[in-house]
């Protein structure tokens, strides 16, 4: 899976939990939760669905490493390699 494919999946999953937003307009360094107004519950749902799609388990102590789109995509790339 390359960077573009990961982004596409991330946008699709974000859209599911925040259907009124346009995740694809996220800037690389914007805080995802703040920008799309996602609370802790929906944030957990998003991570569960990422786990289901990609089989990557994100431990809680890594939550700080995936706050922006760029961070998240890099993190996933690192995990699936």
């Amino acid at each position: 899976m390359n960077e573009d494919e990961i982004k596409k999946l991330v946008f699709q999953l974000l859209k599911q939990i925040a259907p009124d937003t346009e995740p694809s307009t996220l800037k690389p360094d914007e805080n995802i939760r703040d920008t799309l107004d996602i609370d802790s519950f929906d944030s957990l749902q998003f991570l569960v669905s990422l786990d289901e799609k990609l089989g990557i388990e994100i431990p809680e102590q890594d939550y700080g490493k995936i706050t922006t789109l760029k961070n998240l995509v890099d993190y996933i790339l690192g995990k699936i390699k």
Partner: protein
Amino acid sequence: MIEFQMPSLGADMEAGTLIEWRKKPGDAVKRGDIIAEVETQKGLIEIEVFDEGIIGELLIKEGTKVPVGTVMALINPTETTLETRKETISEKPTVKIQPTEEKIVEKATAEKFEERHIKVSPLAKRIATENNIDLSQIQGTGEDGSITKDDVEKAISQKAKIEKKEEKSLPKNLAIRSAIAAAMSKSNTDIPHYYLEKRIDITKALAWLREANSKRPIQKRLLPAALLIKAVAKSLIDFPELNAIWDNEVQIKKEINIGFVVSLRGGGVIIPAIHKASEKSIDEIMEALNDMIPRARAMKLRSSDLSDSTITITSLGEGGADVVFGVIYPPQVAIIGFGGSSQQPFAENGMLGIRTVFTVTLAGDHRATDGLIGSDFLVTLNKQLQNPEAL
């Protein structure tokens, strides 16, 4: 005979529109079965029955708006079903005929139509059946008044337009807004609130949660909200006066059913209840949240989800405002508010440290309780949160 009434799903609900009966006369129902779907300001709600028996009669037509408390159906209670079984055997044909007739009306309009010898082309008939169009409602424009493919297609587009219009006439967030407006105005007019706040160190509770989550797969992870609900429920056992409703006098409730405020995207809140929260483990509370929050956001709740809350919790989560003073949801007598947590200098036992702290508030109904009870409650809640492993 038990009267099944339009239930009240909160002080703010005056009426509901029956959209669909899910049961028909002769059907057996038990507690928890869904009998109907009702459109309310809080969305399309599945209404459950609380009795066991056989549906006798459905008194309200689908599409009718009726006030809360209206008798909608009659149910023959189970105790008598044994006695009446003999009678029902002789009545059996009637019971059997009804559903069969309904099936014909619903599914085979085209066949029924043929019986009445009105002309319709095979293609038109097929399209009508596929799109659930009642041919008897169409005026044919073909030869000898026969119904053509065009006539059916016209009817389909008309039906779609009507359905679209119906959707438009119910802007969900506006409906919710007016429900909130009614309940909160009532609260502010009727309830003399008193307010208390307490700063609570939650470093230990969050550490316990992190430790618990590190051993769990992501699907089983706990959110702070589950812990907070459990701590409130456990504290309430010692403060029954706060777990109550006001109806000219305070009525203490035995079950601790915690209403949890879920904010909706696009505005508005909905408050599903976690029933018997004091008897549930933190895991069970988390499961209840996992089940209810997505359904609340999709506005697909069941009547029991919205019934019988005895107290409300509102939580701002991390990064939000520091303090929230709630408005009591009538007829309840208290609401607990959790502000956003943040790292703060916190002095304890003569030592100053950096701790994760939040402010917990209680708004109480002064008709039902006094500030001292509220204050004692917050002290107890603090103690519970300092011993998360015991929750």
